[in-house]
């Protein structure tokens, strides 16, 4: 009898073991599936967040580029002079004055005319004569003065240089009451 009951208990035990095993497997399988689902959902959310971040980054970059472009435009606008008004000649003249200040033209080196060349030669002769005698004759001095006034600035400068050298060396006296020029 006891021997007859043993397979039954054995079979029941096996069945029970199977049931427990199936239950456990089911539970674990369910857990895995739910975990996979939640993992899947998480990855989807992450993707969404990433997409949003990318969009934000792109927006930020666009905004930055726009800002840079605006700054460049502002710099260009500052560097450019005010556009001249064609309807007002005064305004145009003012604008030109701002960009290029009106300056007096540089004095060109004046070439002596034939008369001035002759006058310079005569003045030099008068000066040499005065140096030879150590003083000015009244007539020579007045002639020298007259010639001197008709000469170019360059010719005058050269005569004054010679005059000064002669007086520094004591070869020609200087009378303040009757200066030679």
């Amino acid at each position, binding site marked *: 009898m006891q021997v007859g009951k043993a397979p039954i208990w054995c079979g029941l035990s096996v069945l029970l073991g199977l049931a427990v095993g199936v239950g456990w497997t089911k539970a674990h399988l369910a857990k895995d599936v739910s975990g996979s689902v939640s993992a899947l959902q998480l990855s989807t959310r992450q993707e969404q967040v990433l997409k949003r971040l990318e969009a934000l980054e792109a927006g930020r970059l666009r905004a930055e580029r726009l800002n840079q472009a605006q700054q460049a435009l502002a710099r260009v606008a500052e560097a450019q002079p005010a556009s001249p008004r064609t309807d007002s000649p005064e305004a145009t003249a003012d604008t030109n004055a701002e960009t290029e200040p009106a300056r007096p033209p540089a*004095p060109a080196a004046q070439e002596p005319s034939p008369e001035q060349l002759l006058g310079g030669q005569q003045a030099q002769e008068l000066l040499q004569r005065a140096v030879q005698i150590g003083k000015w004759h009244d007539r020579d001095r007045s002639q020298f003065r007259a010639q001197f006034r008709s000469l170019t*600035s*360059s010719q*005058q*400068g050269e005569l*004054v*240089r010679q005059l*000064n*050298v002669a*007086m*520094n060396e*004591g070869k020609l*006296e*200087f009378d*303040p009451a009757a*200066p030679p*020029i």
Partner: protein
Amino acid sequence: MLRERLFTKKTVGGALIAAVLTCSALASAGFRGGYPVYVGNGYANGGLGAARNSSDSRQYIDIVSQEGWAWFVFIDANGKYGGCTTTDSNRLTLARSVSNGSYVEASWDSGGNCTAITVRNGSYFEPPVL
């Protein structure tokens, strides 16, 4: 008699006070310098006002500036001449900055070319008064 004495005392006292006030006013007139013309070997200096106001009839400073050149002329109390010429634009500018109360100093080389020019305008330089 007593009135006369009182009047004399008052007059003398008033004169004394006036003299003290005048002296104190002169003492607070500021520093003044006299710079007569001096002509050395290769240089000269002097104040235009001092030259003009000098008791002798010789001292003389003349700065002739023209387009492109300038001539600095000095004559001291002994009648000694010293001068230089320049075509340097900076020295021409200095020549044109000379005024009645200026003090001018010039140095030159053996060719009479200005090598240094100094123009000073100070409160202590004598202005021409005569």
